[in-house]
């Protein structure tokens, strides 16, 4: 399994499936932050953006993600909500500085790679005395999700596919290092190879995984050594642990509630915590019962095994998490790979 959406996208974009041997099958994991954000959090963001005093700053790829009523931030914007697309946390700070009488909220999502910029942004807001700036925090953690893929109550219902090894995240690992994966490799006896996002990186990392499997090893190896070290970026880690703390649990679209998998702002930074500032509360909504995302994310099913795939669930109108962003397993298959389904049928 490649954990990261970036890897999923590259596999599809470069057609790597076609050049892998038939006995190597890549399962596309849950490592796309947009995909795994649950509908309830989108609902919260929409309700927040609909408040007349609020300007919500979001990354562009979140705009089309559907909430529980099929409403997205894009449609909320069309109905008059003040929602701005930003490309970096600094853009949001700039917007807050220019509009001191607006409540400017940054919709923070992402794995460990995007958490440090959010931390820096909060520091900056503190330094600049931005009184009406806050963050709606949805940052999540990679190792706990990998743990959930391998062992969680949900597996009993879905069944299990024996994953032989993992391609570990590239950018996430530049921050957290390779060390946090060691316990997973040890506990579950699975080899993990941290891999870069270039197609050659991935081919090399897959080869390294195959060698480990053939030799019966289960270690954490680092293919992406030009950017990743064992200890990672200490400065970024400190910055993050100063400002954020673990949530008891966080909901993932497709995986359900995963213990200790999300971050929230510490009490000392409560003034920047939009959830507290606006007394936001989460109303959990059930995923569509016909949606097979949970099984697809664990490799038990393939996108075409889902009844919704390509019928009512397409990248234009996604229903399940795997279809939401181009990095999701279903969207990648639909956008880049669906011609293979017909080739198979013909053959």
């Amino acid at each position, binding site marked *: 399994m490649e954990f990261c959406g970036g890897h999923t996208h590259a596999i599809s974009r470069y057609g790597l499936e076609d050049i892998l041997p038939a006995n190597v099958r890549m399962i596309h994991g849950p490592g796309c932050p947009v995909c795994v954000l649950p509908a309830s959090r989108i609902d919260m963001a929409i309700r927040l953006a609909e408040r007349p005093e609020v300007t919500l700053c979001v990354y562009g790829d979140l705009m089309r993600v559907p909430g529980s009523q099929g409403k997205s931030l894009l449609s909320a914007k069309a109905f008059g909500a003040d929602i701005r697309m930003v490309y970096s946390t600094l853009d949001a700070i700039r917007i807050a500085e220019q509009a001191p009488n607006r409540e400017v909220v940054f919709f923070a999502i992402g794995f460990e790679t995007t958490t440090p910029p959010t931390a820096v942004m909060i520091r900056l807001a503190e330094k600049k005395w931005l009184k009406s700036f806050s963050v709606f925090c949805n940052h999540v953690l990679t190792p706990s999700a990998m743990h959930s893929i391998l062992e969680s109550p949900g597996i009993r219902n879905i069944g299990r596919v024996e994953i032989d090894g993992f391609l570990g995240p590239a950018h996430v690992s530049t921050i957290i290092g390779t060390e946090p994966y060691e316990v997973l490799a040890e506990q579950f006896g699975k080899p993990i190879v941290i891999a870069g996002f270039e197609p050659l990186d991935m081919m090399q990392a897959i080869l390294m995984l195959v060698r480990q499997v053939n030799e019966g090893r289960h270690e954490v190896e680092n293919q992406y050594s030009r950017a990743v070290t064992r200890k990672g970026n200490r400065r970024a880690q400190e910055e993050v642990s100063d400002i954020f703390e673990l949530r008891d649990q966080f909901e993932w679209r497709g995986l359900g509630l995963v213990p200790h998998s999300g971050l929230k702002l510490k009490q000392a930074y409560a003034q920047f915590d939009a959830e507290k500032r606006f007394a936001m509360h989460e109303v959990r909504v059930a995923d569509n019962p016909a949606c097979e995302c949970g099984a697809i994310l664990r490799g038990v099913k393939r996108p075409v095994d889902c009844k919704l795939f390509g019928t009512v669930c397409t990248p234009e109108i996604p229903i399940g998490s795997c279809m939401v962003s181009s990095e999701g397993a279903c969207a990648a298959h639909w*956008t880049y790979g669906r*011609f293979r389904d017909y080739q198979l049928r013909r053959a």
Partner: protein
Amino acid sequence: MRATAYQRKLDIENGRVDLSHGAGGRAMAQLISGLFHEAFGNEWLARGNDQAAFDVGAGRMVMTTDGYVVSPLFFPGGNIGSLAVHGTINDVAMGGARPLYLSASFIIEEGFRFSDLKTIADSMGEAARAAGVYIITGDTKVVERGKADGLFISTTGVGVLADGLDLSAEKARVGDRVLVSGSLGDHGAAIMSRRQNLAFETEIVSDSAALHDLVALMVAAGGSSIRVMRDPTRGGLAAMLNEIAHQSGLGFRLQEEAIPVKPAVAAACELLGLDPLHVANEGKLVAIVAADMADAVLAAMRGHPLGCDAADIGEAVADSHQFVQLSTSFGGGRIVDWLLGEQLPRIC
């Protein structure tokens, strides 16, 4: 036309458009004659009528219209004015026609600088003259501050089609070749490099250009063996080929290595998570050409400065699913799908 004496000269250097310039009074007349007539100068405009009458030769006419809302108004390689002329000329030319006349309609926001308006009008005039096309009628409206983002332009173009030429997507056949006139994604990447919240340093220049001379060479070389031509603007090559696939009921198979993309454009797209095949062009065309004449048409394209990097990038294939497929430079295969959602608003 009798010269009109205005109380005060148009202060092009420091002045700004105000609501009176769209009100139909003397101020509007002064703006039109002092700025637009000056820039576009031709006998039709000089007569000052509400319409322009012109002769047309034998043959069928083509007509097209397009609105321009690009942001920013000025970008490396052009501005909204040159774009409004090139874009409409190209839509006429893609039918194989020779463009003759344009109309231009301006919606101007109150407070717009005369100096910017003059620069834009001048580059429209220049682009039209260089293309041998005349802007013969127009309209000016001014809206209150905040009701338009500076300036919107609409242009309509008419042209004349040579006898017997009838290019259309449904004429594509299995085995036809796909030719592109040059590198893809330049315009979109140039615009992105100047977006306020995105700005990055690059030497990428928009490819905005009028393609009718190139088209004339191609038509002379290939005639009706050219099945259809399109300029891949919004949605890029991907959208255009998917359109033709649906209209013709065929699929396409492309070779990634054959598709020209400048390294700087590829790098910018990589940085922004975009696919160059989805990025807009304003001076490129794609032609579907019968296989036996493809080399001749390609040679004709390469003989023109705007086609010197022309390439044969793939072929039309029988495919009931009408997929546009790509053999990646890595040796794998993938679909080139329509652009999903909005990649970049107001690219042209």
